[in-house]
């Protein structure tokens, strides 16, 4: 095991019980592969290409993004990502074209910090894609000022290796953060987020879909802290697990004593495509205020066999019927992506995964 992995918490710690630390270590030791094609979506705006954690300036176009030294946080994953990273700072009312970032790894491990700071009423969209092999670790700090709006879409498409994302966000008064993650590659993953509703009426939607097959393991561990009143948070996660793979979804909502009128929703659902697969769900509520509305649902199931037969009886072949039903199952988690081009790309990735998995 490489040293870099050794000081991660052990799986005996509750927050790390489902983390695939072995997979992470194995990813970091992966032999180099050729750099895959870095494909940007057809969008205006900044395009950044990181190869093994280093900006490829010739193939990047920074627009309003800057690159420089950034501080890390004290989290086990976040603290590794100190050093050179990218920042997007927008002044009040500023709106930019989408920022696209492609992270290519050719093996081993790389760590990159980033920072998104939006001043009052600024709006931004960030789209990130992970490809290649090895362990890619990212720390993203987000600060949204009053009324600022950020839409993030992140897709993990590495055929192998591991992606860990440590996210720390502070959402200000009436600000809105919508983040959608798609794990549709063969890599392991951990999405580890701490979101703080730091202003009155802050809004967060944070979720996505993790698709796993073979021996793969992906997980999210998200904690939303409602520190101020009138906030609303929605966590919608969908897990699809085939073969002997495992998806774990842990989503927690904390409501501070004075954070009255909080509306917190967690919807965690798992679909097992094979009996040998596992989906772990852990919705958690810690509520110290008395006037709140918090709903959580957590279910794991299999494809509805009655619907399967109904579709087949109309002429749809079995594998296609499975794909349609599975796709419908994850649809909720992807439909929040606001940009049509981005949403279509994510949906196509999910479709490609399904086609391969249900073959």
């Amino acid at each position, binding site marked *: 095991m490489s040293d870099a992995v050794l000081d991660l918490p052990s799986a005996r710690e509750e927050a790390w019980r489902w983390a695939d630390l072995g997979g992470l270590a194995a990813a970091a030791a992966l032999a180099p592969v050729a750099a895959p094609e870095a494909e940007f979506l057809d969008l205006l705006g900044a395009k950044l290409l990181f190869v093994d954690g280093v900006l490829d300036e010739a193939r990047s176009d920074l627009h309003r993004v800057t690159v420089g030294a950034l501080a890390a946080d004290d989290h086990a994953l976040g603290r590794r990502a100190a050093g050179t990273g990218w920042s997007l700072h927008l002044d009040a009312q500023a709106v930019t074209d989408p920022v696209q970032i492609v992270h290519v790894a050719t093996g081993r491990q790389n760590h990159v910090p980033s920072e998104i700071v939006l001043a009052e009423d600024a709006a931004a969209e960030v789209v990130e894609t992970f490809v290649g092999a090895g362990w890619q670790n990212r720390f993203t700090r987000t600060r949204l000022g009053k009324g600022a709006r950020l839409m993030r879409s992140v897709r993990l498409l590495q055929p192998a290796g591991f992606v860990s994302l440590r996210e720390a966000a502070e959402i200000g008064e009436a600000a809105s953060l919508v983040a959608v993650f798609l794990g549709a590659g063969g890599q392991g993953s951990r999405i580890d987020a701490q979101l703080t509703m730091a202003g009155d009426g802050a809004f967060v939607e944070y979720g996505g879909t993790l698709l796993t097959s073979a021996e793969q393991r992906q997980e999210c561990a998200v904690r939303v802290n409602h520190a101020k009143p009138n906030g609303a948070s929605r966590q919608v996660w969908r897990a699809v697990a085939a073969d002997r793979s495992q998806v774990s979804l842990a989503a927690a909502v904390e409501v501070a004593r004075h954070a009255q009128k909080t509306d917190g929703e967690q919807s965690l659902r798992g679909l097992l495509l094979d009996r040998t697969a596992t989906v772990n769900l852990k919705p958690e509520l810690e509520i110290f205020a008395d006037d709140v509305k918090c709903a959580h649902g957590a279910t794991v199931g299999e494809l509805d066999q009655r619907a399967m037969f109904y579709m087949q*009886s109309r002429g749809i*072949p079995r594998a296609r019927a499975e794909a349609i039903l599975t796709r419908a199952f994850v649809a909720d988690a992807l439909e929040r992506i606001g940009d049509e081009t981005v949403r279509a790309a994510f949906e196509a990735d999910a479709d490609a995964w399904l086609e391969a998995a249900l073959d």
Partner: protein
Amino acid sequence: MLRIENLHAEIDGKPILKGLTLSVNAGEIHAIMGPNGAGKSTLGYVLGGRPGYEVTEGSITFDGQDLLELEPHERAAAGVFLGFQYPVEIPGVSNVQFLRESLNAQRAVRSEKPLSGGEFLKLAREEAKKLDMDAEMLKRPVNVGFSGGEKKRNEMVQMGIIDPKFAILDETDSGLDIDALRIVGDGINRIMRQPTKAVLLITHYQRLLDYVKPDFVHVLADGRITRSGGAELAHQLEREGYAEIAA
């Protein structure tokens, strides 16, 4: 068109069909009546190829080919349509998507060109209109939140779009109001009353048969056809009940 010989079928090891024999020719409409639990829906599911319905003896040929050899979707492509007694809800999948996929999958098996989105929508809208179903319902998820009668009507819209050669309609009349019954009856005649087509109409009541006049009526009791006759048999059953006639 359809030839069922000495069919025995079981569910979870429990025999349900016990030597059922029935022949249906092109151009014919056969009504099947019979007490609850007799095995009528089971017959429909066996014809459709539902997993868990195991044929232990006998044979089914459809247009000369062994139907039991075919996968459910291949049976559909061969022209078999099963109208469900309890249509299934499919959250997250719109009627439009479901039906377009269905139709194009069948067309692919028959080496026909797929219909484009526009062509399909036109067809679907026309068919919905003929069956007096609000075209808006086509956009909704399959059967989700539909009333019992709306689900049945939706089955007929599907049948109209798919245009099958042979339809098994399992209690398509149950849950329909008086006007809907007439509309559905007219729909069955329009879509299926053709010299090249045939229908197996499972029903408990004479009233559907007032619209869709059967050429033959059979009583299915305890897994077998116990009596067959013409349209008059249905009237007799309604008057006298199964106990007298089917025993």
